[in-house]
């Protein structure tokens, strides 16, 4: 378990930022979600070793969150949300500089900077001044400085903001690669649920300073065994009649998605048989799961 915390609490004056947060994060990428003001940034500050909690204890990579804060920061990489760079430098100098500040010897930092810049896709541009970088390039640069010292945990704060669709896809691919292949624990904080769905294996949802939900994505997004979502081409009316005759309830949403509620113990092959009988093509067939958005709404309790 790379992160274990118990009963974390913190207040800014009278404002309760975190209250009694207990969790254990281990394998796989973790998504951190919550409405604004839910306490995500405070939690991140504590986990990254900037802030000591008022109450509670924990370990990040076996380092105590109160006593070993500097050690935590050495082993952790942070990709901030807001724009940040140092003017007058080129990418290699920038990345190597922060590698050095993390504790790498100068030559090592320089070598690593080159490697990491290639990895994030800035290889060609690595000698150019940062002032000339586009928004997408600055985003990748932030990722590079987070990776240069080979951290064991990587915190990413809204990594795809300000990127155009191609840039988003590429950065997500990079993160996916890091999360799955490189044995680095990735913690992703984002408001874009689709990003979290596509990368993270588990989620942590905070609301009003408390833990609202935590667990593996598959477990939380309850699979509703008897509900299937279909798209077909063909004689829809006939298909519906067939299904209803077998005791299924059939609904259709406005964009022509057909929801079929199957009775207890029914065989899903029956759906296909019904399709063949009515000459209908089955074009999309998915077991219904709560979307992350619905889970979020349900857990955060608003709306």
């Amino acid at each position, binding site marked *: 378990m790379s992160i274990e915390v118990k009963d974390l609490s913190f207040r800014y004056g009278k404002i309760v930022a975190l209250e009694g947060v207990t969790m254990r994060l281990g394998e796989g990428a973790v998504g951190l979600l919550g409405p604004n003001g839910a306490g995500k940034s405070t939690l991140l500050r504590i986990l990254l070793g900037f802030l000591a909690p008022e109450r509670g204890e924990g370990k990040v990579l076996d380092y105590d969150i109160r006593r070993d804060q500097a050690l935590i*920061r050495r082993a952790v990489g942070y990709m901030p949300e807001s724009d940040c760079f140092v003017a007058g430098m080129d990418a290699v100098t920038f990345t190597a500089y922060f590698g050095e500040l993390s504790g790498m010897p100068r030559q090592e930092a320089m070598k690593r900077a080159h490697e990491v810049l290639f990895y994030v896709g800035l290889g060609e541009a690595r000698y150019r001044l940062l002032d000339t970088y586009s928004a997408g390039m600055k985003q990748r640069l932030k990722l590079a400085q987070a990776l240069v010292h080979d951290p064991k945990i990587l915190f990413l704060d809204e990594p795809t903001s300000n990127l155009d669709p191609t840039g988003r896809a590429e950065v997500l691919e990079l993160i996916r690669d890091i999360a799955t292949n490189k044995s680095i624990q990735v913690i992703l904080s984002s408001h874009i649920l689709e990003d979290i769905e596509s990368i993270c294996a588990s989620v942590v949802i905070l609301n009003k300073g408390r833990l609202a939900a935590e667990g593996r994505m598959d477990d939380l997004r309850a699979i509703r065994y008897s509900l299937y979502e279909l798209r077909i081409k063909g004689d829809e009316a006939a298909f519906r009649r067939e299904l209803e005759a077998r005791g299924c309830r059939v609904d259709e949403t406005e964009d022509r998605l057909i929801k079929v509620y199957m009775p207890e113990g029914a065989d899903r092959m029956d759906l296909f048989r019904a399709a063949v009988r009515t000459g209908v093509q089955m074009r999309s067939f998915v077991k219904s799961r709560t979307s992350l958005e619905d889970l979020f709404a349900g857990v955060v309790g608003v709306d």
Partner: protein
Amino acid sequence: MAVVREKGYAHWDGSLAGRRFPWLPITRTGIRLAFRKKGFKLALASAFLPAFVALGGLYVSERLEDFKGLVQSNRALLKIDPAYFQLFLTGYPLYFILIVVLSFAGAGLVAEDLKHNALQLYFARPLSKRDYVLGKVSVVAFFVILLTGLPWILLVAFKLIFAGNLAFLAAYPWLPLSILGQTALLTLFFGSYVLLLSASSRNTRYVIVLIFGVFYFSSVLSAILRGIFRSPAMILFSLPENLRQAGAALFGGKLPHAVPVVWSFLVLAGICALAVAVLARKVRSVEVIK
């Protein structure tokens, strides 16, 4: 059997060590960035001019007979004693030179980081606020020492070389200490002054204006106040004058103003304290994550 390396991210098998001075890269980078600025090298080179003039004066004074014709009326100027050093090390010309050089090298030290949000990158490292400030202050210290302490200790050495004996040192044994003291004073003051102003704004150009402006405006202010109140104590409002007072005390020379020197030291210490306060507020590691 050869290993095929895959393209992509490879782990680094080195180890991250704590170094004794974790802030050294900050200093080194600050110095390098200063040199990259246009015109800086010229400014720095010009800044050594007074030292060369002083060197020339030292040489001439040693070889007075050779220059007899030239220096008939200027005999007094060429008496080499602590006052000679004091003249160069505590005057307006030196302050001006330092301010020009530090505008290049120091104005943006904190301002640029504030403007571009770089603080969050610094503090995501095992770096404390103290380390950050030390690293930045060291950039200012580097240039101040380079322009004051270093050349002036060398000048003492040159004097001894030109004279061929240690008589000078025997006559004024505490001169090197005065020089060191003055260097320390200037380093502490300018370190505080420049960082204080650099942390007060996100705009480097504005900081440069402040660096010049506050320094020289304080003189103007004190002159005005002296005119109104007719009291020599008003010089305490002027930063350059306080520096001169303190410098004079360090060289054992006559105080330029009829004000107890301890007040000047207090004013200068006040600037340092103010700098510490402002830096403590502006350089906040907790705000790394909003």
